[in-house]
Protein backbone atom coordinates (compact mmCIF):
# COMPACT_ATOMS: atom_id res chain seq x y z
CA UNK A 1 0.00 0.00 0.00
CA UNK A 2 1.11 3.57 -0.56
CA UNK A 3 1.59 4.35 3.14
CA UNK A 4 3.88 1.36 3.58
CA UNK A 5 5.88 2.30 0.49
CA UNK A 6 6.35 5.82 1.83
CA UNK A 7 7.62 4.50 5.13
CA UNK A 8 9.91 2.04 3.34
CA UNK A 9 11.68 4.85 1.54
CA UNK A 10 12.68 6.35 4.88
CA UNK A 11 14.50 3.22 6.05
CA UNK A 12 18.28 2.92 6.17
CA UNK A 13 20.02 0.34 4.02
CA UNK A 14 20.37 -1.99 6.97
CA UNK A 15 16.74 -1.64 7.80
CA UNK A 16 15.79 -2.32 4.20
CA UNK A 17 17.80 -5.53 4.25
CA UNK A 18 15.91 -6.59 7.33
CA UNK A 19 12.67 -5.87 5.54
CA UNK A 20 13.39 -8.72 3.10
CA UNK A 21 11.62 -10.83 5.71
CA UNK A 22 8.49 -8.99 4.67
CA UNK A 23 8.20 -11.29 1.66
CA UNK A 24 5.35 -13.62 2.45
CA UNK A 25 6.11 -17.26 1.75
CA UNK A 26 4.02 -20.38 2.04
CA UNK A 27 3.45 -23.63 0.15
CA UNK A 28 1.20 -23.54 -2.88
CA UNK A 29 -1.72 -25.96 -2.77
CA UNK A 30 -3.00 -27.96 -5.73
CA UNK A 31 -6.21 -25.93 -5.54
CA UNK A 32 -5.49 -22.49 -4.21
CA UNK A 33 -6.47 -18.86 -4.27
CA UNK A 34 -3.88 -16.13 -3.71
CA UNK A 35 -4.79 -12.57 -2.86
CA UNK A 36 -1.47 -11.45 -1.45
CA UNK A 37 1.98 -10.81 -2.82
CA UNK A 38 4.62 -13.34 -1.99
CA UNK A 39 6.39 -16.51 -2.99
CA UNK A 40 4.46 -19.72 -3.19
CA UNK A 41 6.24 -23.02 -3.71
CA UNK A 42 4.57 -26.15 -4.98
CA UNK A 43 6.17 -29.47 -4.14
CA UNK A 44 4.44 -32.79 -4.31
CA UNK A 45 5.26 -36.29 -3.19
CA UNK A 46 2.75 -37.82 -5.59
CA UNK A 47 1.43 -36.99 -9.07
CA UNK A 48 -0.88 -34.01 -9.21
CA UNK A 49 -2.59 -33.97 -12.58
CA UNK A 50 -5.19 -31.24 -12.31
CA UNK A 51 -4.16 -28.25 -10.27
CA UNK A 52 -5.03 -24.59 -10.47
CA UNK A 53 -4.29 -21.47 -8.52
CA UNK A 54 -6.63 -18.49 -8.76
CA UNK A 55 -5.07 -15.08 -8.26
CA UNK A 56 -6.98 -11.93 -7.40
CA UNK A 57 -6.09 -8.38 -6.51
CA UNK A 58 -7.78 -5.13 -5.72
CA UNK A 59 -9.84 -3.64 -8.56
CA UNK A 60 -7.08 -1.12 -9.32
CA UNK A 61 -4.31 -3.71 -9.45
CA UNK A 62 -2.86 -6.03 -12.04
CA UNK A 63 -0.91 -9.14 -11.18
CA UNK A 64 2.70 -9.95 -12.03
CA UNK A 65 3.63 -13.64 -12.04
CA UNK A 66 7.10 -15.12 -12.30
CA UNK A 67 8.18 -18.75 -12.18
CA UNK A 68 11.45 -19.85 -10.65
CA UNK A 69 13.13 -23.02 -9.40
CA UNK A 70 11.04 -24.92 -11.89
CA UNK A 71 11.65 -28.64 -11.75
CA UNK A 72 9.15 -30.34 -14.07
CA UNK A 73 9.37 -32.74 -17.00
CA UNK A 74 7.63 -31.18 -19.97
CA UNK A 75 8.35 -34.22 -22.15
CA UNK A 76 6.45 -36.38 -19.67
CA UNK A 77 3.36 -34.20 -19.91
CA UNK A 78 4.02 -31.85 -17.03
CA UNK A 79 2.97 -28.29 -17.65
CA UNK A 80 2.56 -24.90 -16.05
CA UNK A 81 0.26 -22.51 -17.89
CA UNK A 82 -0.55 -18.98 -16.86
CA UNK A 83 -3.90 -17.61 -18.02
CA UNK A 84 -4.74 -13.92 -18.30
CA UNK A 85 -8.08 -14.04 -16.53
CA UNK A 86 -10.12 -16.77 -14.88
CA UNK A 87 -11.53 -19.90 -16.42
CA UNK A 88 -14.35 -21.68 -14.70
CA UNK A 89 -16.42 -24.51 -16.11
CA UNK A 90 -15.29 -23.74 -19.62
CA UNK A 91 -16.16 -20.05 -19.34
CA UNK A 92 -13.61 -17.29 -19.21
CA UNK A 93 -13.50 -13.90 -17.55
CA UNK A 94 -13.05 -11.43 -19.10
CA UNK A 95 -14.98 -12.68 -22.10
CA UNK A 96 -13.41 -12.75 -25.53
CA UNK A 97 -15.50 -9.69 -26.38
CA UNK A 98 -14.04 -7.64 -23.55
CA UNK A 99 -10.44 -8.81 -23.41
CA UNK A 100 -7.79 -7.02 -25.47
CA UNK A 101 -5.99 -10.24 -26.44
CA UNK A 102 -7.18 -13.24 -28.47
CA UNK A 103 -7.62 -16.41 -26.45
CA UNK A 104 -4.41 -18.05 -27.57
CA UNK A 105 -2.32 -15.09 -26.41
CA UNK A 106 -3.90 -15.19 -22.99
CA UNK A 107 -2.07 -18.43 -22.21
CA UNK A 108 1.63 -18.48 -21.36
CA UNK A 109 2.98 -22.01 -21.42
CA UNK A 110 6.19 -22.62 -19.51
CA UNK A 111 6.94 -25.67 -21.64
CA UNK A 112 6.49 -23.83 -24.90
CA UNK A 113 9.70 -23.06 -26.70
CA UNK A 114 8.29 -19.72 -27.75
CA UNK A 115 7.50 -18.63 -24.22
CA UNK A 116 9.80 -15.86 -23.03
CA UNK A 117 11.20 -15.91 -19.54
CA UNK A 118 10.50 -13.27 -16.97
CA UNK A 119 7.33 -11.98 -15.42
CA UNK A 120 3.89 -12.22 -16.98
CA UNK A 121 1.57 -9.30 -16.30
CA UNK A 122 -2.19 -9.72 -16.25
CA UNK A 123 -4.54 -7.31 -18.00
CA UNK A 124 -6.93 -7.08 -15.05
CA UNK A 125 -7.10 -7.93 -11.36
CA UNK A 126 -7.40 -11.69 -11.87
CA UNK A 127 -5.19 -14.42 -13.30
CA UNK A 128 -4.81 -18.18 -13.06
CA UNK A 129 -2.08 -20.76 -13.09
CA UNK A 130 -2.84 -24.30 -14.26
CA UNK A 131 -0.29 -26.98 -13.57
CA UNK A 132 0.21 -30.71 -13.80
CA UNK A 133 3.11 -32.62 -12.36
CA UNK A 134 3.65 -36.35 -12.69
CA UNK A 135 6.89 -36.97 -10.85
CA UNK A 136 7.30 -36.86 -7.10
CA UNK A 137 9.58 -34.20 -5.69
CA UNK A 138 9.01 -31.97 -8.71
CA UNK A 139 7.75 -28.48 -8.30
CA UNK A 140 8.21 -24.78 -8.82
CA UNK A 141 8.02 -21.41 -7.10
CA UNK A 142 5.54 -18.75 -8.10
CA UNK A 143 6.34 -15.13 -7.22
CA UNK A 144 3.31 -12.87 -7.09
CA UNK A 145 3.51 -9.10 -7.18
CA UNK A 146 0.89 -6.46 -7.69
CA UNK A 147 1.09 -3.33 -9.78
CA UNK A 148 -1.17 -0.33 -9.88
CA UNK A 149 -3.57 -0.15 -12.82
CA UNK A 150 -4.44 3.47 -13.61
CA UNK A 151 -7.30 2.49 -15.90
CA UNK A 152 -9.01 -0.59 -14.52
CA UNK A 153 -11.32 -2.37 -16.92
CA UNK A 154 -12.78 -5.82 -16.27
CA UNK A 155 -12.76 -6.39 -12.57
CA UNK A 156 -13.69 -9.31 -10.39
CA UNK A 157 -14.83 -8.20 -6.97
CA UNK A 158 -13.22 -9.94 -4.00
CA UNK A 159 -16.17 -9.31 -1.76
CA UNK A 160 -19.99 -9.22 -1.97
CA UNK A 161 -20.11 -5.64 -0.70
CA UNK A 162 -18.43 -2.47 -1.83
CA UNK A 163 -18.52 0.37 -4.26
CA UNK A 164 -16.70 1.34 -7.40
CA UNK A 165 -16.52 3.91 -10.18
CA UNK A 166 -15.73 2.87 -13.73
CA UNK A 167 -14.42 5.58 -16.01
CA UNK A 168 -13.80 5.12 -19.70
CA UNK A 169 -12.21 8.20 -21.30
CA UNK A 170 -12.43 8.16 -25.08
CA UNK A 171 -11.63 4.49 -25.48
CA UNK A 172 -13.64 1.95 -27.42
CA UNK A 173 -13.42 -0.57 -24.59
CA UNK A 174 -16.20 -2.51 -22.96
CA UNK A 175 -15.58 -3.08 -19.28
CA UNK A 176 -17.27 -5.42 -16.84
CA UNK A 177 -17.37 -5.38 -13.05
CA UNK A 178 -18.25 -8.86 -11.87
CA UNK A 179 -19.58 -9.80 -8.44
CA UNK A 180 -19.97 -13.54 -7.96
CA UNK A 181 -22.82 -13.13 -5.49
CA UNK A 182 -26.49 -12.21 -5.62
CA UNK A 183 -26.53 -8.53 -4.77
CA UNK A 184 -28.59 -5.41 -4.48
CA UNK A 185 -27.04 -2.91 -6.80
CA UNK A 186 -27.43 0.87 -6.63
CA UNK A 187 -26.21 3.11 -9.42
CA UNK A 188 -25.25 6.35 -7.72
CA UNK A 189 -23.86 8.21 -10.70
CA UNK A 190 -24.14 7.73 -14.42
CA UNK A 191 -22.57 9.98 -16.99
CA UNK A 192 -22.76 8.80 -20.57
CA UNK A 193 -21.98 10.35 -23.86
CA UNK A 194 -20.32 13.45 -22.49
CA UNK A 195 -18.84 15.04 -25.58
CA UNK A 196 -15.30 16.30 -25.85
CA UNK A 197 -14.79 19.93 -24.97
CA UNK A 198 -16.17 22.54 -27.32
CA UNK A 199 -18.71 20.07 -28.65
CA UNK A 200 -22.38 20.05 -27.94
CA UNK A 201 -23.78 17.18 -25.97
CA UNK A 202 -25.34 14.67 -28.36
CA UNK A 203 -29.07 14.61 -28.64
CA UNK A 204 -30.47 11.27 -27.58
CA UNK A 205 -33.52 10.17 -29.48
CA UNK A 206 -36.01 8.18 -27.50
CA UNK A 207 -35.53 4.50 -28.09
CA UNK A 208 -36.92 1.32 -26.68
CA UNK A 209 -33.88 -0.03 -24.86
CA UNK A 210 -30.37 0.98 -25.69
CA UNK A 211 -30.05 -0.83 -28.97
CA UNK A 212 -28.03 1.31 -31.30
CA UNK A 213 -26.56 3.47 -28.57
CA UNK A 214 -22.83 3.37 -28.59
CA UNK A 215 -22.52 4.25 -24.92
CA UNK A 216 -24.58 2.58 -22.23
CA UNK A 217 -24.49 0.54 -19.05
CA UNK A 218 -25.97 -2.91 -18.90
CA UNK A 219 -26.67 -5.03 -15.86
CA UNK A 220 -26.10 -8.71 -16.47
CA UNK A 221 -27.00 -11.75 -14.45
CA UNK A 222 -26.06 -15.36 -14.82
CA UNK A 223 -24.56 -18.45 -13.30
CA UNK A 224 -21.21 -18.43 -15.07
CA UNK A 225 -18.27 -16.05 -15.35
CA UNK A 226 -18.48 -15.31 -19.09
CA UNK A 227 -20.31 -12.00 -19.45
CA UNK A 228 -21.12 -12.71 -23.10
CA UNK A 229 -23.25 -15.66 -21.96
CA UNK A 230 -25.13 -13.81 -19.26
CA UNK A 231 -28.65 -12.42 -19.35
CA UNK A 232 -29.17 -8.68 -19.73
CA UNK A 233 -31.34 -7.60 -16.82
CA UNK A 234 -31.40 -3.91 -17.62
CA UNK A 235 -29.63 -1.35 -19.71
CA UNK A 236 -29.25 2.36 -19.24
CA UNK A 237 -28.38 4.84 -21.95
CA UNK A 238 -29.74 7.89 -20.21
CA UNK A 239 -28.57 9.35 -16.95
CA UNK A 240 -31.38 8.58 -14.51
CA UNK A 241 -32.86 11.43 -12.50
CA UNK A 242 -33.18 9.35 -9.35
CA UNK A 243 -31.42 6.48 -7.71
CA UNK A 244 -31.38 3.31 -9.79
CA UNK A 245 -31.60 0.19 -7.70
CA UNK A 246 -31.95 -3.42 -8.61
CA UNK A 247 -31.86 -6.73 -6.78
CA UNK A 248 -30.16 -9.40 -8.82
CA UNK A 249 -30.69 -12.94 -7.63
CA UNK A 250 -27.98 -14.56 -9.73
CA UNK A 251 -24.75 -16.26 -8.79
CA UNK A 252 -22.94 -13.63 -10.80
CA UNK A 253 -23.99 -9.97 -11.06
CA UNK A 254 -22.23 -7.75 -13.57
CA UNK A 255 -22.15 -4.04 -14.33
CA UNK A 256 -20.91 -3.60 -17.89
CA UNK A 257 -19.98 -0.25 -19.38
CA UNK A 258 -20.10 -0.13 -23.17
CA UNK A 259 -18.23 2.76 -24.73
CA UNK A 260 -17.98 3.96 -28.32
CA UNK A 261 -14.73 5.81 -27.69
CA UNK A 262 -16.26 9.15 -28.61
CA UNK A 263 -17.01 10.29 -25.11
CA UNK A 264 -15.98 10.08 -21.48
CA UNK A 265 -18.26 7.65 -19.70
CA UNK A 266 -18.53 7.20 -15.98
CA UNK A 267 -20.64 4.98 -13.76
CA UNK A 268 -20.56 4.75 -9.98
CA UNK A 269 -22.33 2.07 -8.03
CA UNK A 270 -22.44 0.29 -4.73
CA UNK A 271 -23.56 -3.21 -3.92
CA UNK A 272 -24.36 -5.43 -0.98
CA UNK A 273 -25.04 -9.10 -0.53
CA UNK A 274 -28.64 -10.19 -0.86
CA UNK A 275 -29.89 -12.36 1.93
CA UNK A 276 -31.76 -15.49 0.95
CA UNK A 277 -35.06 -14.02 2.06
CA UNK A 278 -34.41 -10.91 0.00
CA UNK A 279 -33.79 -12.65 -3.27
CA UNK A 280 -36.57 -12.16 -5.81
CA UNK A 281 -38.74 -15.20 -6.32
CA UNK A 282 -39.15 -16.62 -9.79
CA UNK A 283 -42.64 -16.86 -11.18
CA UNK A 284 -44.10 -20.31 -10.64
CA UNK A 285 -45.21 -20.42 -14.23
CA UNK A 286 -41.92 -19.22 -15.66
CA UNK A 287 -40.55 -21.43 -18.37
CA UNK A 288 -37.19 -19.75 -18.35
CA UNK A 289 -34.39 -21.30 -16.41
CA UNK A 290 -32.56 -18.11 -15.42
CA UNK A 291 -31.85 -16.31 -12.22
CA UNK A 292 -34.29 -13.78 -10.97
CA UNK A 293 -34.26 -10.02 -10.79
CA UNK A 294 -36.40 -7.60 -8.90
Amino acid at each position, binding site marked *: *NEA*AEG*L*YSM*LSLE*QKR*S*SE*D*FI*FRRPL*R*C*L*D*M*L*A*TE*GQFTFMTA*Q*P*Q*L*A*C*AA*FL*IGEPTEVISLELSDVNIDCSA*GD*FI*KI*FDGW*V*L*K*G*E*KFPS*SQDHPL*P*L*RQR*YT*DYCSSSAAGGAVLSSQNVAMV*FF*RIHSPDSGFTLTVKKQHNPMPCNIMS*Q*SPEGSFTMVMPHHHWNCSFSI*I*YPVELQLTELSLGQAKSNELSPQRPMRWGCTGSGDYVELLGG*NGVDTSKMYPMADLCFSPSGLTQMRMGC*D*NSVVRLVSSGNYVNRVSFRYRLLG*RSEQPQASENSLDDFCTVG
Partner: protein
Amino acid sequence: SQGVHSSVPASPNPESTQPQPLRVLTRLGEEYSVHLADPTDPLHTRALRLQLSRLLERKFGNIRALTAGLETRPDEEMERARRSEDPPISLDLTFHLLREMMEMSRAEQLAVQAQNNRRMMELFGK
Protein backbone atom coordinates in the same frame (compact mmCIF):
# COMPACT_ATOMS: atom_id res chain seq x y z
CA SER B 1 -14.39 -31.23 -24.03
CA GLN B 2 -13.82 -34.27 -21.92
CA GLY B 3 -17.40 -34.82 -20.84
CA VAL B 4 -20.32 -33.04 -19.35
CA HIS B 5 -20.54 -32.43 -15.66
CA SER B 6 -23.78 -32.84 -13.84
CA SER B 7 -25.89 -29.82 -13.09
CA VAL B 8 -24.98 -27.83 -10.03
CA PRO B 9 -27.42 -28.45 -7.19
CA ALA B 10 -29.38 -25.59 -5.73
CA SER B 11 -27.83 -23.77 -2.82
CA PRO B 12 -28.57 -25.55 0.42
CA ASN B 13 -31.24 -24.20 2.73
CA PRO B 14 -29.37 -22.61 5.65
CA GLU B 15 -32.27 -23.40 7.94
CA SER B 16 -31.99 -27.10 7.25
CA THR B 17 -30.67 -29.17 10.10
CA GLN B 18 -29.26 -31.78 7.78
CA PRO B 19 -25.57 -31.56 6.95
CA GLN B 20 -25.20 -29.92 3.58
CA PRO B 21 -22.75 -31.35 1.09
CA LEU B 22 -20.24 -29.12 -0.59
CA ARG B 23 -19.79 -30.32 -4.13
CA VAL B 24 -16.71 -30.10 -6.27
CA LEU B 25 -17.45 -31.00 -9.85
CA THR B 26 -14.85 -31.98 -12.38
CA ARG B 27 -15.24 -31.61 -16.06
CA LEU B 28 -15.26 -35.37 -16.41
CA GLY B 29 -18.56 -35.56 -14.64
CA GLU B 30 -17.19 -36.99 -11.43
CA GLU B 31 -18.51 -35.37 -8.33
CA TYR B 32 -16.89 -35.11 -4.96
CA SER B 33 -18.81 -34.24 -1.85
CA VAL B 34 -17.53 -32.91 1.40
CA HIS B 35 -19.94 -33.42 4.23
CA LEU B 36 -19.74 -31.14 7.21
CA ALA B 37 -21.33 -32.06 10.50
CA ASP B 38 -22.47 -28.57 11.42
CA PRO B 39 -22.05 -25.74 8.93
CA THR B 40 -22.78 -23.15 11.65
CA ASP B 41 -19.85 -24.27 13.77
CA PRO B 42 -17.20 -21.55 14.17
CA LEU B 43 -14.57 -24.09 13.10
CA HIS B 44 -16.54 -24.67 9.91
CA THR B 45 -14.20 -22.67 7.73
CA ARG B 46 -11.04 -24.25 9.03
CA ALA B 47 -12.52 -27.74 8.83
CA LEU B 48 -13.66 -27.03 5.31
CA ARG B 49 -10.23 -25.83 4.30
CA LEU B 50 -8.45 -28.84 5.76
CA GLN B 51 -10.93 -31.35 4.42
CA LEU B 52 -10.96 -29.80 1.01
CA SER B 53 -7.19 -29.74 0.78
CA ARG B 54 -6.92 -33.38 1.77
CA LEU B 55 -9.74 -34.41 -0.51
CA LEU B 56 -8.37 -32.67 -3.56
CA GLU B 57 -4.79 -33.75 -2.98
CA ARG B 58 -5.94 -37.31 -2.54
CA LYS B 59 -8.43 -37.49 -5.36
CA PHE B 60 -7.06 -35.35 -8.13
CA GLY B 61 -4.11 -37.60 -8.65
CA ASN B 62 -6.38 -40.56 -9.33
CA ILE B 63 -8.57 -39.23 -12.08
CA ARG B 64 -7.89 -38.68 -15.74
CA ALA B 65 -6.43 -35.34 -16.52
CA LEU B 66 -8.81 -32.55 -17.39
CA THR B 67 -6.72 -31.95 -20.46
CA ALA B 68 -5.77 -35.42 -21.62
CA GLY B 69 -5.65 -34.16 -25.19
CA LEU B 70 -2.88 -31.76 -24.36
CA GLU B 71 -0.49 -34.56 -23.46
CA THR B 72 0.12 -35.76 -27.00
CA ARG B 73 -1.03 -32.97 -29.31
CA PRO B 74 -0.92 -29.70 -27.45
CA ASP B 75 -0.70 -27.59 -30.58
CA GLU B 76 -3.68 -29.30 -32.14
CA GLU B 77 -5.70 -28.84 -28.98
CA MET B 78 -4.80 -25.17 -28.87
CA GLU B 79 -5.68 -24.82 -32.55
CA ARG B 80 -9.09 -26.36 -31.97
CA ALA B 81 -9.61 -24.09 -29.01
CA ARG B 82 -8.53 -21.10 -31.02
CA ARG B 83 -11.10 -21.89 -33.66
CA SER B 84 -13.84 -22.61 -31.15
CA GLU B 85 -12.89 -19.90 -28.62
CA ASP B 86 -13.42 -22.45 -25.89
CA PRO B 87 -10.61 -22.39 -23.37
CA PRO B 88 -8.47 -25.53 -23.85
CA ILE B 89 -8.01 -25.94 -20.14
CA SER B 90 -10.54 -25.34 -17.44
CA LEU B 91 -11.45 -26.23 -13.90
CA ASP B 92 -14.89 -26.97 -12.60
CA LEU B 93 -15.81 -25.45 -9.30
CA THR B 94 -19.11 -24.44 -7.87
CA PHE B 95 -19.58 -20.78 -7.08
CA HIS B 96 -20.05 -21.77 -3.47
CA LEU B 97 -16.55 -23.24 -3.33
CA LEU B 98 -15.09 -20.34 -5.25
CA ARG B 99 -16.60 -17.92 -2.75
CA GLU B 100 -15.21 -19.91 0.16
CA MET B 101 -11.77 -19.73 -1.40
CA MET B 102 -12.11 -16.00 -1.99
CA GLU B 103 -13.06 -15.42 1.62
CA MET B 104 -10.13 -17.48 2.86
CA SER B 105 -7.71 -15.66 0.57
CA ARG B 106 -9.10 -12.34 1.75
CA ALA B 107 -8.58 -13.36 5.38
CA GLU B 108 -5.03 -14.41 4.57
CA GLN B 109 -4.38 -11.08 2.84
CA LEU B 110 -5.57 -9.12 5.86
CA ALA B 111 -3.45 -11.25 8.21
CA VAL B 112 -0.34 -10.76 6.09
CA GLN B 113 -0.97 -7.03 5.90
CA ALA B 114 -1.34 -6.80 9.67
CA GLN B 115 1.87 -8.77 10.15
CA ASN B 116 3.75 -6.51 7.75
CA ASN B 117 2.47 -3.43 9.54
CA ARG B 118 3.70 -4.81 12.86
CA ARG B 119 7.12 -5.61 11.43
CA MET B 120 7.36 -2.17 9.89
CA MET B 121 6.65 -0.54 13.23
CA GLU B 122 9.23 -2.78 14.90
CA LEU B 123 11.76 -1.82 12.27
CA PHE B 124 11.15 1.84 12.84
CA GLY B 125 11.45 1.29 16.56
CA LYS B 126 15.05 0.02 16.24
